[in-house]
């Protein structure tokens, strides 16, 4: 195990190195740089811009250097623990990420927990009671959740809660709690807001889990070892959860490690519509503004999470199914 981990971590470092180059290059693929994006935005507000000192600024930010030099400056900092500086927010990238990481992970992990807590039992149910009313309903709702774009759902939720309850649910806190310390009141207020993004993210992913689990479980339910467990006198549900579900979870577990990074990078639009103080909107902003260090830092973060997630999945997979060897 230790050796396996060591080897994987080593490979991970190599992947990260490659990733850092590619992502740095991708960020630079769109035309222009941070300054031109910034100028475009200023012009959008009606400002006219004198271009005289733009070149000077460009030099100041190191944007006139060749790609390799810029990359080197950045990556050597990153390796040394300095993620660089956000051009746009004028803050160390580490600080930006630090500020949002906590709340972002809270919301996203909460969403994942809710997602699994709902979808896995429902998936098992719809396999065991194939074509029952419950199965049909789960399929229907699952696919409605999947077929309605997340941002539209977010918008609908916002609008409905305004119409029905006269409350606005954008953001994660009411004004009085935004800058307050954590307290019971703030927690309640948080829960009063966080359900919306959690619901949106969870409904978007539920169909996936339900249908995949159902499909795989249906295959396992007729295996002879299920009969053996039955003959032992195990309760039907218990034996299903203990035996076939464990096999059927394989595909979900194969990719479970990617959930978190995927949600971070795909809930951008939801994050924007619901005005969430998470990392996702910042990622989009930094990309649009070509705020290289910030974007790079976030992509690296997502990359690290993906790599760790893959490792986690691999370990879980081996734990789940002894026939699979860590290798």
């Amino acid at each position, binding site marked *: 195990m230790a050796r396996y981990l060591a080897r994987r971590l080593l490979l991970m470092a190599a992947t990260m190195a490659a990733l850092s180059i590619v992502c740095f*290059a991708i960020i630079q693929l769109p035309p222009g740089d941070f300054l031109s994006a910034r100028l475009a935005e200023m012009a959008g507000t009606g400002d006219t811009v004198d271009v005289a000192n733009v070149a000077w600024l460009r030099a100041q930010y190191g944007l006139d250097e060749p790609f390799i030099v810029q990359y080197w400056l950045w990556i050597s900092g990153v390796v040394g623990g300095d993620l660089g500086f956000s051009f746009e927010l004028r803050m160390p990238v580490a600080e930006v990420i630090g500020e949002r990481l906590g709340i972002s992970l809270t919301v996203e992990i909460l969403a994942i927990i809710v997602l699994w807590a709902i979808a896995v039992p429902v998936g098992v149910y719809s396999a065991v009671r194939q074509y029952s009313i419950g199965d049909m309903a789960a*399929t229907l709702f699952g696919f409605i959740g999947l*077929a309605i774009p997340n941002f539209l759902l977010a*918008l609908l939720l916002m609008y409905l809660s305004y119409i029905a309850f006269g409350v606005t649910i954008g953001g994660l806190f009411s004004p009085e709690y935004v800058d307050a310390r954590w307290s019971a009141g703030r927690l309640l207020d948080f829960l009063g807001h966080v359900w919306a993004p959690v619901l949106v993210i969870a409904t978007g992913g539920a169909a996936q889990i339900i249908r995949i689990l159902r*499909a795989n479980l249906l295959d396992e339910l007729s295996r002879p070892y299920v009969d053996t467990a039955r003959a032992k006198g195990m309760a039907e549900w218990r034996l299903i959860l203990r035996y076939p579900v464990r096999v059927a979870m394989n595909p979900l577990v*194969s*990719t479970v490690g990617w959930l978190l990074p995927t949600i971070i*990078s795909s809930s951008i639009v939801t994050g924007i519509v619901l005005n969430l103080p998470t990392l996702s909107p910042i990622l989009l902003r930094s990309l649009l503004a070509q705020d290289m260090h910030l974007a790079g830092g976030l992509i690296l973060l997502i990359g690290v999470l993906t790599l760790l997630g893959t490792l986690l999945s691999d370990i879980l997979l081996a734990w789940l199914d002894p026939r699979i060897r860590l290798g």
Partner: protein
Amino acid sequence: MLTRSGDAAPRGPRRPTGTESPWALVWGRFRHHRLALVSGVILALLYLSAIFAEFLAPGDPQAYNARYTFAPPQSIHLLDRDEDGSLVFRPYVHGYAVTVDPEAMRRTFAIDPDKKHPLRLLGRSEPYLLMGFIPMQRKLLTIEGQGTPLLLLGADRLGRDVLSRLIIGTRVSLSVGLVGVVLSLAIGLVVGGLSGYHGGLLDLVVQRVIEFLRSVPTIPLWMGLAAALPRDWPPLTIYFAITVILSLVGWTELARVVRGRFLALKTEDYVTAARLDGASDLSLVFRHMMPAFSSHIIAAASLAIPAMILAETSLSFLGLGLQAPIISWGVLLQEAQNLRSVATAPWLLWPAAAMIVAVLAMNFLGDGLRDAADPYAT
């Protein structure tokens, strides 16, 4: 030896009477799956309406009409009263009474009970080209009475007919994105299958590649790619290119899942047995291991299709997806995703309903296929 030669049956291997070929078995079981059959019919209808879109769409999907911006849907009345007061079957719709509210900058619509516009099946219409090359002069449903549009699903912000746009949008939505799905399924199955089957170095390399591809978040990738594609390609081509490129990343998930399952499956005796029959690696993967996994693959495919159709809405959020004047369900939804539409013109959300129907149909069809392929299913 024990083989008898000669007297070849015309098609396929000969079998004792009363037994069926494996495919006949599957089809026989599928046929008894009512839900799947209904879904199949619905899908067929959807594709037919994609093919004959121009004929089915009552109006011109691009024709804006200043008088009917955000007009609500008309409802069809089937029975009408004759002069003598008796009920007759004569479908008609009411016209609108339009008032402009300059203060609120909107038009308000009321049904005008005095204006009745009968509907005609296969009535005359403006000339148009069916599928872009068959000149036609008739449409499925037309309205009598000049100047009144037929807006069965209401109108959008430019007064365009939502129904016609929905029907025309079927064409792109049910075709272009599917290429991506098919591509990513194919790559995912082959790569994941071989990686899981062989294990070892191949697996290590493939897994690192997958890991790497997954580590790059999609949004920057899209933005980078969009910037890299030539700007003067037509929008549909760009979109097509992007879906293809996306599917080159999209296979990773399936590949990983397949691989995870295959690592376990390959130790099964029947796989070994097939290998000892002399089956090649590809045949092992596809004929023996993959079918054990077909439920998953069917489910994954029926999930990937809506995801791909929807991807375009997120893409166009970044200015990368399909763009008007091309019409697709995603574009229509994209246009409806603002508070104004949600609050005052909910009929603009019909494309979501169409999508749900299509997705459910694909899914139940998939269910039927799954059950038909499952030897245990009864």
